[in-house]
């Protein structure tokens, strides 16, 4: 809603009243279907090893990115909001790194004491 204030500036009083064209939502929707179909095909054709993991992660991040950027409108939001939301995610990456080291150690201990029988 555009209003003119005392000094004569045009001010935007209300939050986001303009909307995106319907086409972009339909395209993203279609892309999400196609990507989900592809990630299902990864299991259907029983890809294994690095190929399987990289394909799964690739489709996953692509889908997550499309949902966040367009369905959740982050693509159009101001950087002040986007950065507040995305930087804390690095803490999750740190946690994943720590727990990877942890599960490797636990696995090693279990093999060492349960299977090998200790030193």
């Amino acid at each position, binding site marked *: 809603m555009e209003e003119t204030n005392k000094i004569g500036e045009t001010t935007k009083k209300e939050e986001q009243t303009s909307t995106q064209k319907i086409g972009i939502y339909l395209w993203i929707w279609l892309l999400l279907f196609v990507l989900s179909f592809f990630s299902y095909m990864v299991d259907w054709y029983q890809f294994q090893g690095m190929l399987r993991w990289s394909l799964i992660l690739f489709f996953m991040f692509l889908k*997550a990115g499309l949902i966040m950027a367009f369905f959740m409108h982050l693509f159009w939001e*101001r950087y002040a909001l986007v950065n507040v939301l995305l930087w804390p995610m690095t803490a999750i990456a740190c946690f994943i790194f720590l727990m990877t080291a942890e599960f490797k150690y636990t696995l090693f201990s279990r093999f060492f004491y349960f299977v090998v029988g200790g030193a």
Partner: protein
Amino acid sequence: MSEQKIDGFELKPGFKGMASDTGSDQTMFKGVHWGKAMMWIFLLSDTFVFSCFLISYMKGRGSTIVDWPNTSEVFSLYVGGVPVPLLLIAIMTFVLITSSGTMALAVKYGYEKNRKMCGWLILATAVGGLTFVGMQVFEWSKLIHEGVRPWGNPFGASQFGSFFFMITGFHGFHVSIGVIFLFIYTYKVFAGHYESKKRGWFTKMKGDYVEIEILGLYWHFVDLVWVFIFAFFYLW
């Protein structure tokens, strides 16, 4: 859009805009409804909850010396005597994406003040969510019949059951809460609460279609979490 102004404050683009927004001695999130900002903060905290579940699943699965159950076989359905791997999960994924799409369109039509379209699309989203929860109930009861328990199962590592019920259960709980709110907002839109400026939830502020976008954020987040669960729990 550097000429755009909110309450006389000039909005700069990019990181420069971020710096001036943050250091403006005013509200930091320019042009963002307070409810939308709060929903984002809530979703951020919820992201951490789901991350903790998925990371503990990674830790549990990575540290067991017993083989993890083959999810492709555990979650297969028999169609005409032939096992189809992950069939139900694939259908659930498509149902949830469909409902996410209808929600995105509902937000769009809401901002365009197209009350009828917005209402029908929210109703479609709610029905999609309900279908998803229904299929999840079917999946749970099937696995419980096959002997999957939080403390053990006939397919492999005993941690499988506890992670499965915890992660999909918490996600299903989010979907269920979402479905309840979708039905409430279907009523609110059809009853014209945003045209008559009836007050919103727990607030004296007048209702507006921005509430549909806030509801949409929650619903897309539920879909987003499913993307990660589908990848890590079912496909990995």
